[in-house]
C-alpha cells in the first residue's frame, strides 16, 4: 500500500519559502495515502497561477491546463474514466474570477470530483493584483487606493447553488486540512474545499497570524451539525465566512454519473467502441 512518500516526486516547487501551498501539497499527499489510493489511481487537474503548478509536484497523473478551466477538464476526465480519483486544484483567481461560471456549474452538475482552492486573496504569479477574494479596501498594484469591489464569499455561494460538500481549512492546520481532503475524496459527488493558503509575498494582511486570530474551528463546536444547511449558512454569516472544518455535507444526493441514463460502472474509456453491423443498420434505418 502506498504511503504519502509515494506521492512525492523530485520536482522542487517554485513557490516562495513559507507559501501556504506547501501545506496543501503535503495534505493532499497524506490524504491520498490515508484513503488507500495508489499514485496511478489519482489525476490532479490544475489551473494557472502559483497554485496551478501543484499538479506537477505530486507523483500521480497531472494535467496543468488553461487559466480558469481546471473544472471542466476534470469533469471530462472523470466522465471518461470514473474509476479514477480526480482532483481539481487552483487558486482563488482561477476558481472565483475567470472560472467562476465553471465553479457554479460544477457544483450544480455534481460530478464526483474534489475541488481544492488555494485561496490567498491576491494574484501572486502576476506580482500582486486584487482578487475576487480580496477584502474591500485591500491595496494592491491594481487597487492602489484599496479595492472598491465586494469580496466573494465562496462558501455561502456554494451553499446557495446547492453544493453537496463544502469545507474550509487553513494551511497552518495540516491535520484538519488532511482530514477535510480525505472526506472530500470519500464524498460521492462534487466537493468544494477552500483553503486559506497565505501568500507571504503579496498579502501582508491575511497572514498566518491574522488567520490564527480570526478563524473559528467548527470541529471545536460539539453542537455543530454539518448536515444542517441553514445552520451552515448561519455560521458562515455570523463569522463572515471565517470558519474551518466540514461546513456542510449532503450524503443523500447522488453524483451526476449515477444519474445518467445508461451510464455503466465500467469506465467509458474501457468500453468497446466498435459498433456491430446490426447496431449500425439499426441506426441507419432512421434515415431511410
Amino acid at each position, binding site marked *: 500500500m502506498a504511503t504519502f512518500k509515494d506521492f512525492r516526486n523530485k520536482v522542487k516547487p517554485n513557490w516562495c519559502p513559507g507559501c501556504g501551498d506547501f501545506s496543501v501539497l503535503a495534505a493532499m499527499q497524506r490524504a491520498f495515502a490515508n484513503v488507500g489510493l495508489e499514485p*496511478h489511481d489519482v489525476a490532479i487537474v490544475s489551473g494557472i497561477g502559483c497554485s496551478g503548478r501543484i499538479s506537477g509536484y505530486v507523483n500521480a497523473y497531472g494535467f496543468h491546463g488553461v487559466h480558469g478551466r481546471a473544472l471542466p477538464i476534470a469533469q471530462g476526465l472523470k466522465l471518461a474514466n470514473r474509476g479514477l480519483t480526480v482532483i481539481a486544484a487552483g487558486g482563488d483567481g482561477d476558481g472565483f474570477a475567470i472560472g467562476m461560471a465553471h465553479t457554479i456549474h460544477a457544483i450544480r452538475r455534481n460530478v464526483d470530483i474534489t475541488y481544492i482552492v488555494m485561496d490567498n486573496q491576491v494574484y501572486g504569479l502576476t506580482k500582486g493584483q486584487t482578487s475576487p477574494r480580496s477584502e474591500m479596501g485591500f491595496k494592491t498594484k491594481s487597487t492602489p487606493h484599496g479595492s472598491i469591489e465586494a469580496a466573494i464569499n465562496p462558501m455561502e455561494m456554494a451553499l446557495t447553488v446547492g453544493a453537496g460538500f463544502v469545507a474550509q481549512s487553513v494551511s497552518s492546520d495540516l491535520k484538519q486540512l488532511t482530514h477535510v481532503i480525505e472526506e472530500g475524496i470519500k464524498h460521492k459527488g462534487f466537493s468544494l474545499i477552500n483553503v486559506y493558503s497565505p501568500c507571504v509575498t503579496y498579502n501582508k494582511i491575511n497572514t498566518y497570524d491574522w488567520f490564527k486570530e480570526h478563524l473559528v474551528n467548527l470541529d471545536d463546536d460539539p453542537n455543530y451539525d454539518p448536515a444542517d444547511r441553514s445552520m451552515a449558512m448561519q455560521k458562515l454569516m455570523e463569522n463572515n465566512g471565517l470558519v474551518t472544518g466540514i461546513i456542510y455535507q449532503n450524503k443523500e444526493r447522488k453524483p451526476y454519473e449515477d444519474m445518467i441514463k445508461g451510464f455503466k460502472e465500467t469506465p*467509458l474509456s474501457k*468500453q468497446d467502441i466498435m459498433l456491430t453491423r446490426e447496431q449500425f443498420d439499426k441506426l441507419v434505418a432512421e434515415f431511410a
Partner: protein
Amino acid sequence: MIKQLSWKVGGQQGEGIDSAGEILATALNRKGYYLYGYRHFSSRIKGGHSNTKIRISTSPVRSISDELDILVAFDQETIDLNAFELIEGGIILADAKFNPAVPEGISARLLAVPFTKIAEEVGMAQMKNMVAVGASAALLGISVDAFQEVIEERFARKGQKIVDKNMEAISRGVEFVISEVGDISNFKLEPSDGKKRLYMIGNDAIALGAVAAGARLMAAYPITPSSEIMEYLIKRLPEFGGTVVQTEDEIAAITMVIGANYGGVRALTASAGPGLSLMTEAIGLAGMTETPAVIVNTQRGGPSTGLPTKQEQSDLLAMLYSTHGEIPKIVIAPSTAEECFYDTIQAFNLAEQYQCPVIILSDLALSLGKQTVEPLDYDRIKIDRGKLVLDDEELPELENSELFPRYEFTPDGISRRVLPGKKNGLHHVTGVEHDQTGRPSENPVNRKKMMDKRLSKLANGIQFEEPVFLDAKHEEADLLIVGFCSTRGTIHEAMERLEAEGMKVNHAHVRQVLPFPTDIMAEQMKKAKKVIVVENNATGQLTNLIKMHVGMAEKLVHIGKYDGNPFLPSEIYKQCKELFVHGHI
C-alpha cells in the same frame, strides 16, 4: 413527364411547413428519387415567413435550383416573396381561405385549393399541410399509397385514428386537384430507379459518424446551426453507454472534451462561429498537450452574432489561424452529407493518430440542407487509435519516481500516449512548454526540439482519403472552379451549363484545408487558364489561402457571396460566362 423539378412550401413559421416538406420528401426518397431540401428560416420560433424548397430528381442533386415549378402557399406573403422564382407555366397551390392573388407580372397559374376547409372537414384545421401534400402529389403523379408508410411511422404514437385522418387529408388533396385540372399535369415525374437510399442533413451524418467512430461523450452548448448534432447524440449515445453534457458555455465544452480525450474516451464538441471564437485558447491547449479533440464548426453568417440562420463560409481562416502560438492542427471540410459521415470517422482517427485537434468544417447549407445519400457502408468504418498504449499492455516499472516519457522524441514526432489510471504510465501534461516527461521546461534547446516535434507530426502530410475532390477531365481547361463545403452541387450544375456551351471546365473541391493540399491544387491550377474560387464570404479567404500556398495569383478570380443565401447555379454560371465575354479567357 419530367426528370427534375423544384417544389417549395411557405407560410408562417410553426404552421407545419417543415413537416409538409418532410413527409413529401421522405415518401419520394423511398420511391427512389434524389432530393435536396433547403430550409429558409429566421431566428425565432413562431411567426415570420419560412419556407422549404425541395429539388426532386431522377439523378443525384446537391443544390437548390434557380427556378421553381410548384409553390405551395399558406399565406399571401409566401406568394409575394417567392412567386418571382416560378418558371413560365409554374403553378401556385394556395389556400383558398386567404383569397390568394398572383402579383403583377407573374405568369404562373394559380390554383386555389381549400386546404383549411378540407382539413376542417376531415377533422383538424392543422392538417391543412397534409392536404397540400396531397395536392402536390397529384401534380407530380405520385399515388396516395406512397405516403401510407411515412404517415404511419410519423403518427403511430398518436393512434390509428390520427394516421387515418392524415391519410384522408392527403387523399382529399389529391382528389381536389385531379377534379380541377384533370389527371394531366406538366409536372409528372419520370419513374425513378426505385433504389433504397437515405435522406439526411449534414448534421445527422456528422452525428451518426461520431457514433460509428466510437465517440461516447459530447460536451456542447446549443447554437444554430449545430444543435441537431447534439440532439441526435442526446438521443443515441445512452444506447451505447455514452452521454452528452450541455455545458455552461463553449469554453467548458471544449475543455471537457479535452479532459475526456485525455482520459481515453473519444469525445467531441460542435458549435458555430461564436462558439469557436470562445474555444480558441483551449484548442491551443489540445495542440500543446498533444491531446486529441474533435471540434465541429457549422459555419453561419458572421461576424459577431451576424446572421445566425443564414449561410456563410467566413470562418475558414479563423479555423486555421485563430489560436495564439503555433500548433499542429487538422482542418477538414466535407462537401456532401455522405462525406460528413465518413469524414467524421476519419476525424476521430486523425485526432488520435496525430494527437492533435481536428476541426470538421461544415456550413449551414451543408449542415441543414437535407439530401439523398447513397447507403452508408459499414465496412468502411475503421477505428485507428494511433500510438495509444492499450489497456492490457504492461509497461516497465518506473524506478525512483521517474516518469513515463509521454512526449518522447521520435522520428515521426508522435509519442506513445498512455491514459491516466495506467500503472507505470505516470507523466505530467501541461500547456507550459515541457520536456519529454511533461515537466515544465524553459530550456531553449528543449523548447526548439519540442516545437519541431509537434509541428513535424503533420509536416509530411496526413493520411486523409480525399484531400481534394476532383471532377477534372480536361488536360487543358478554360476554367478550374474551386470551392469548399456545401457549394459542391451548385458548382457542378454551373459547370454542366458551361460545358454544354463548349467551355472546358474542371472542378476541384478542397476537402482537406489544413495541411493544405498544395501539390494537388498546383497541378490542377496549371492545367487551367483561369481559376475561379467560389466562396460564401466577402474577402476571398480561400482565394487568399491558395495564393499563399500555390501562388499563380494572376489566374485567380474570386466569386464571393455574403448576403446570407447559398449560391445559385446561375450566379456562378453568369460570372464565369462574363470572363469569356470580356475576353479574360
